[in-house]
């Protein structure tokens, strides 16, 4: 049990627990907030693993942007405030899902741990400098492509959200029929 282990266990448990709460809570808004907690804890995990830049980016983009977006979306879709059971599936399906998710977890854990082993390894994330050199050297073309993708996604999101109601209804019914 090293120091790293201890810290990782702490943030990991927080992360897993808040993630679990975010998918099981009955309050819609709480779900988004628990997600935020989970993501913050995840950033902590990244820090423990020595990836400071990733932790920072995660915090900025996920916690700063995405969760806010989710909250906006919840409000725009008139999510009920307070406890509600509308947004959950039937009990049987949830039970099945539970079994399924347990099985998935077990499967993944088994595969990953048996595949990669349980050795105590040294964490060597390297400096942010080398990371940035790599990012803008070796990985620069994928990086540029990604920025293009981002622009396209933004434009697309804008286009979708700006469709007038009638047009949306027409496309819906046209696809549905």
């Amino acid at each position, binding site marked *: 049990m090293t120091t790293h282990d201890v810290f990782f266990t702490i943030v990991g448990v927080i992360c897993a627990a808040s993630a679990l709460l*975010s*998918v099981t809570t009955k309050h819609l808004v709480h779900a988004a907030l628990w997600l935020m907690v989970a993501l913050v804890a995840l950033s902590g995990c990244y820090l423990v693993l020595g990836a400071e830049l990733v932790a920072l980016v995660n915090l900025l983009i996920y916690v700063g942007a*995405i969760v806010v977006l989710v909250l906006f979306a919840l409000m*725009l879709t008139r999510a009920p405030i307070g406890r509600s059971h509308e947004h959950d599936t039937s009990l049987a399906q949830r039970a099945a899902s539970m079994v399924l998710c347990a099985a998935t977890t077990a499967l993944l854990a088994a595969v990953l741990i048996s595949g990669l082993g349980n050795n105590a390894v040294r964490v060597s994330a390297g400096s942010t400098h080398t990371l940035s050199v790599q990012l803008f050297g070796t990985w620069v073309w994928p990086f540029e492509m990604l920025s293009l993708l981002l622009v396209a996604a933004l434009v697309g999101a804008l286009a979708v959200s700006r469709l007038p109601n009638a047009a949306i209804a027409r496309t819906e019914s046209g696809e549905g029929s």
Partner: protein
Amino acid sequence: MIHLSLPLALVAALFGIGLYGVVARRNAVLVLIGVELMLSAAGLLFVTAGTTMHDPMRGGQVLTIFLITIAAAEISVALAVVVAVFRARGDIDMARAGEDE
């Protein structure tokens, strides 16, 4: 020094929880939250692999950054669609999606 099994167990747990969110929720936004958790699990696996193994090109971290970017793009489009669907249908219940109106 860190024992590899800890981050890996967290990866598995996050993915499983995300899957539960996707499968067990009816609200589209909550489903998206599940998707985000699964993506996070992937990112954590990348970082774990990158920092605990030989990785001269920093592929683990770079790919995680890419992943976060893509997730942002994905969720922006997805939420736009969700909002549009809500405006057209009045609800975003996944259990009723695809049914004939």
